[in-house]
Protein backbone atom coordinates (compact mmCIF):
# COMPACT_ATOMS: atom_id res chain seq x y z
CA UNK A 1 0.00 0.00 0.00
CA UNK A 2 1.29 3.43 -0.88
CA UNK A 3 -0.19 6.85 -0.09
CA UNK A 4 1.60 9.91 -1.32
CA UNK A 5 1.29 13.66 -1.78
CA UNK A 6 3.00 15.14 -4.84
CA UNK A 7 4.07 18.76 -5.17
CA UNK A 8 4.84 18.43 -8.90
CA UNK A 9 2.97 17.01 -11.92
CA UNK A 10 2.77 13.22 -12.16
CA UNK A 11 1.75 10.72 -14.82
CA UNK A 12 -0.92 8.40 -13.35
CA UNK A 13 -0.38 5.64 -15.92
CA UNK A 14 3.38 5.69 -15.41
CA UNK A 15 2.89 5.59 -11.63
CA UNK A 16 0.49 2.67 -12.03
CA UNK A 17 2.91 0.82 -14.26
CA UNK A 18 5.82 1.25 -11.86
CA UNK A 19 3.77 0.34 -8.82
CA UNK A 20 2.27 -2.70 -10.49
CA UNK A 21 5.69 -3.96 -11.57
CA UNK A 22 6.64 -4.18 -7.90
CA UNK A 23 3.27 -5.60 -6.98
CA UNK A 24 3.55 -8.32 -9.63
CA UNK A 25 6.65 -9.69 -7.91
CA UNK A 26 4.48 -10.53 -4.91
CA UNK A 27 0.99 -10.91 -6.34
CA UNK A 28 1.30 -12.13 -9.94
CA UNK A 29 -1.70 -14.34 -10.71
CA UNK A 30 -3.51 -13.47 -7.47
CA UNK A 31 -5.40 -10.35 -8.47
CA UNK A 32 -8.20 -10.54 -11.01
CA UNK A 33 -9.50 -7.00 -10.65
CA UNK A 34 -7.96 -3.55 -10.67
CA UNK A 35 -10.24 -0.54 -10.26
CA UNK A 36 -8.69 2.83 -10.93
CA UNK A 37 -9.88 6.40 -10.68
CA UNK A 38 -8.01 9.38 -12.07
CA UNK A 39 -9.14 12.92 -11.28
CA UNK A 40 -7.94 15.52 -13.76
CA UNK A 41 -8.04 19.30 -13.65
CA UNK A 42 -10.69 20.74 -15.95
CA UNK A 43 -10.39 24.11 -17.65
CA UNK A 44 -13.92 25.07 -16.59
CA UNK A 45 -15.94 25.03 -13.38
CA UNK A 46 -19.26 26.57 -12.41
CA UNK A 47 -19.57 28.08 -15.87
CA UNK A 48 -16.20 29.84 -15.89
CA UNK A 49 -12.92 29.15 -17.62
CA UNK A 50 -10.26 28.16 -15.10
CA UNK A 51 -6.68 29.07 -16.01
CA UNK A 52 -4.85 27.59 -13.06
CA UNK A 53 -5.57 25.92 -9.76
CA UNK A 54 -3.74 25.71 -6.46
CA UNK A 55 -4.29 22.81 -4.10
CA UNK A 56 -3.71 23.70 -0.47
CA UNK A 57 -3.56 21.05 2.23
CA UNK A 58 -3.06 20.69 5.98
CA UNK A 59 0.41 19.14 6.33
CA UNK A 60 0.23 16.16 8.63
CA UNK A 61 -3.55 15.92 8.84
CA UNK A 62 -3.91 15.32 5.11
CA UNK A 63 -1.40 12.46 5.03
CA UNK A 64 -2.91 10.92 8.16
CA UNK A 65 -6.44 10.97 6.75
CA UNK A 66 -5.45 9.64 3.32
CA UNK A 67 -3.62 6.78 5.02
CA UNK A 68 -6.61 6.07 7.23
CA UNK A 69 -9.02 6.10 4.29
CA UNK A 70 -6.98 3.47 2.46
CA UNK A 71 -6.65 1.39 5.64
CA UNK A 72 -10.42 1.58 6.17
CA UNK A 73 -10.98 0.34 2.63
CA UNK A 74 -8.56 -2.54 3.23
CA UNK A 75 -10.44 -3.50 6.39
CA UNK A 76 -13.82 -3.32 4.70
CA UNK A 77 -12.89 -5.28 1.54
CA UNK A 78 -10.33 -8.02 0.84
CA UNK A 79 -7.87 -5.84 -1.05
CA UNK A 80 -4.51 -7.15 -2.18
CA UNK A 81 -3.00 -3.70 -2.62
CA UNK A 82 -3.85 -0.03 -3.05
CA UNK A 83 -2.18 3.09 -4.39
CA UNK A 84 -3.26 6.65 -3.70
CA UNK A 85 -1.44 9.71 -5.03
CA UNK A 86 -2.75 13.26 -4.66
CA UNK A 87 -1.35 16.50 -6.01
CA UNK A 88 -0.74 19.65 -3.99
CA UNK A 89 0.52 23.01 -5.25
CA UNK A 90 -0.06 24.72 -8.59
CA UNK A 91 -1.87 22.81 -11.35
CA UNK A 92 -2.61 23.58 -15.00
CA UNK A 93 -5.71 22.35 -16.86
CA UNK A 94 -5.42 18.65 -17.80
CA UNK A 95 -2.96 17.99 -14.95
CA UNK A 96 -3.81 14.88 -12.93
CA UNK A 97 -5.06 15.70 -9.43
CA UNK A 98 -5.57 12.28 -7.90
CA UNK A 99 -4.93 8.63 -8.68
CA UNK A 100 -6.67 5.90 -6.67
CA UNK A 101 -6.10 2.26 -7.58
CA UNK A 102 -7.02 -0.97 -5.80
CA UNK A 103 -6.19 -4.57 -6.60
CA UNK A 104 -8.33 -7.50 -5.46
CA UNK A 105 -9.25 -11.04 -6.44
CA UNK A 106 -12.66 -10.09 -7.82
CA UNK A 107 -14.33 -7.04 -9.28
CA UNK A 108 -17.09 -6.25 -6.78
CA UNK A 109 -14.68 -5.34 -3.99
CA UNK A 110 -12.33 -3.48 -6.34
CA UNK A 111 -15.12 -1.21 -7.61
CA UNK A 112 -16.56 -0.68 -4.13
CA UNK A 113 -13.22 0.08 -2.49
CA UNK A 114 -12.08 2.47 -5.22
CA UNK A 115 -15.34 4.36 -5.01
CA UNK A 116 -15.18 4.41 -1.22
CA UNK A 117 -11.65 5.82 -1.24
CA UNK A 118 -12.67 8.64 -3.59
CA UNK A 119 -15.84 9.53 -1.66
CA UNK A 120 -14.01 9.52 1.65
CA UNK A 121 -11.18 11.57 0.20
CA UNK A 122 -13.59 14.12 -1.25
CA UNK A 123 -15.46 14.52 2.03
CA UNK A 124 -12.71 14.12 4.63
CA UNK A 125 -9.19 14.77 3.37
CA UNK A 126 -8.19 18.38 4.11
CA UNK A 127 -7.49 19.80 0.66
CA UNK A 128 -8.76 23.10 -0.70
CA UNK A 129 -8.85 24.23 -4.30
CA UNK A 130 -8.26 27.83 -5.32
CA UNK A 131 -9.00 28.57 -8.96
CA UNK A 132 -7.66 31.40 -11.05
CA UNK A 133 -10.27 32.67 -13.53
CA UNK A 134 -10.44 35.73 -15.77
CA UNK A 135 -12.28 37.46 -12.91
CA UNK A 136 -9.48 36.68 -10.46
CA UNK A 137 -8.82 33.95 -7.91
CA UNK A 138 -11.61 32.18 -6.01
CA UNK A 139 -11.87 29.31 -3.57
CA UNK A 140 -13.95 26.32 -4.64
CA UNK A 141 -16.78 26.30 -2.09
CA UNK A 142 -17.61 22.60 -2.09
CA UNK A 143 -17.16 19.38 -4.01
CA UNK A 144 -19.79 17.96 -6.32
CA UNK A 145 -21.76 15.12 -4.74
CA UNK A 146 -20.54 11.60 -5.48
Amino acid at each position, binding site marked *: MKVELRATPFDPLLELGCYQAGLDERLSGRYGATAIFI*GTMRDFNDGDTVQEMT*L*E*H*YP*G*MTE*RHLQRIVESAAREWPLLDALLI*HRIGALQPNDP*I*VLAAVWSAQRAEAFAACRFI*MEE*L*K*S*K*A*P*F*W*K*RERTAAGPR*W*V*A*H*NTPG
Partner: protein
Amino acid sequence: MAVRIKYFASLRDRLGRAEDRLDPAVALTVAEVWATLWPDTPLPPNTLAAVNMEYASPEQTVRDGDEVAFFPPVTGG
Protein backbone atom coordinates in the same frame (compact mmCIF):
# COMPACT_ATOMS: atom_id res chain seq x y z
CA MET B 1 -1.87 26.28 29.06
CA ALA B 2 -0.76 26.88 25.47
CA VAL B 3 -2.87 26.15 22.40
CA ARG B 4 -1.83 26.65 18.79
CA ILE B 5 -4.55 27.59 16.30
CA LYS B 6 -4.36 27.23 12.51
CA TYR B 7 -6.60 28.59 9.77
CA PHE B 8 -6.73 27.29 6.23
CA ALA B 9 -7.83 28.32 2.74
CA SER B 10 -10.67 30.85 2.39
CA LEU B 11 -11.01 31.18 6.17
CA ARG B 12 -7.34 32.13 6.51
CA ASP B 13 -7.70 34.67 3.69
CA ARG B 14 -10.79 36.14 5.34
CA LEU B 15 -9.18 36.39 8.77
CA GLY B 16 -5.94 37.70 7.33
CA ARG B 17 -3.75 35.26 9.20
CA ALA B 18 -2.76 31.61 9.25
CA GLU B 19 -2.01 31.00 12.91
CA ASP B 20 -2.82 32.13 16.39
CA ARG B 21 -1.71 31.23 19.88
CA LEU B 22 -3.79 31.18 23.03
CA ASP B 23 -2.81 30.78 26.69
CA PRO B 24 -6.16 30.48 28.44
CA ALA B 25 -6.28 30.29 32.23
CA VAL B 26 -9.07 27.67 32.16
CA ALA B 27 -9.90 24.74 29.87
CA LEU B 28 -11.87 25.79 26.78
CA THR B 29 -13.96 24.01 24.20
CA VAL B 30 -13.25 24.33 20.47
CA ALA B 31 -16.13 26.83 20.21
CA GLU B 32 -14.75 28.83 23.13
CA VAL B 33 -11.31 28.94 21.54
CA TRP B 34 -12.87 30.58 18.49
CA ALA B 35 -15.03 32.96 20.56
CA THR B 36 -12.04 34.04 22.63
CA LEU B 37 -9.93 34.80 19.56
CA TRP B 38 -12.71 36.29 17.40
CA PRO B 39 -15.27 37.81 19.78
CA ASP B 40 -16.76 39.95 16.98
CA THR B 41 -16.77 37.24 14.26
CA PRO B 42 -19.19 34.31 14.54
CA LEU B 43 -17.71 31.05 13.26
CA PRO B 44 -18.72 30.99 9.57
CA PRO B 45 -21.37 28.36 8.73
CA ASN B 46 -19.95 25.01 7.55
CA THR B 47 -16.58 25.72 9.13
CA LEU B 48 -14.88 22.50 10.21
CA ALA B 49 -12.63 22.12 13.22
CA ALA B 50 -9.86 19.69 14.09
CA VAL B 51 -7.94 19.07 17.29
CA ASN B 52 -4.52 17.53 16.82
CA MET B 53 -5.41 16.75 13.21
CA GLU B 54 -8.61 14.85 14.10
CA TYR B 55 -12.03 16.27 13.27
CA ALA B 56 -13.57 17.73 16.40
CA SER B 57 -16.99 19.00 17.50
CA PRO B 58 -17.43 22.55 18.85
CA GLU B 59 -18.00 21.00 22.29
CA GLN B 60 -14.71 19.13 22.40
CA THR B 61 -12.38 20.25 25.17
CA VAL B 62 -8.97 21.55 24.16
CA ARG B 63 -5.98 20.48 26.25
CA ASP B 64 -2.62 22.02 26.93
CA GLY B 65 -0.35 21.67 23.91
CA ASP B 66 -3.20 20.92 21.50
CA GLU B 67 -3.27 22.17 17.94
CA VAL B 68 -6.71 23.44 16.92
CA ALA B 69 -7.52 24.07 13.26
CA PHE B 70 -10.45 25.81 11.61
CA PHE B 71 -11.14 25.45 7.90
CA PRO B 72 -13.89 25.54 5.25
CA PRO B 73 -15.41 22.41 3.65
CA VAL B 74 -12.70 20.34 1.98
CA THR B 75 -12.51 20.27 -1.82
CA GLY B 76 -9.82 17.74 -2.75
CA GLY B 77 -9.93 14.92 -5.27
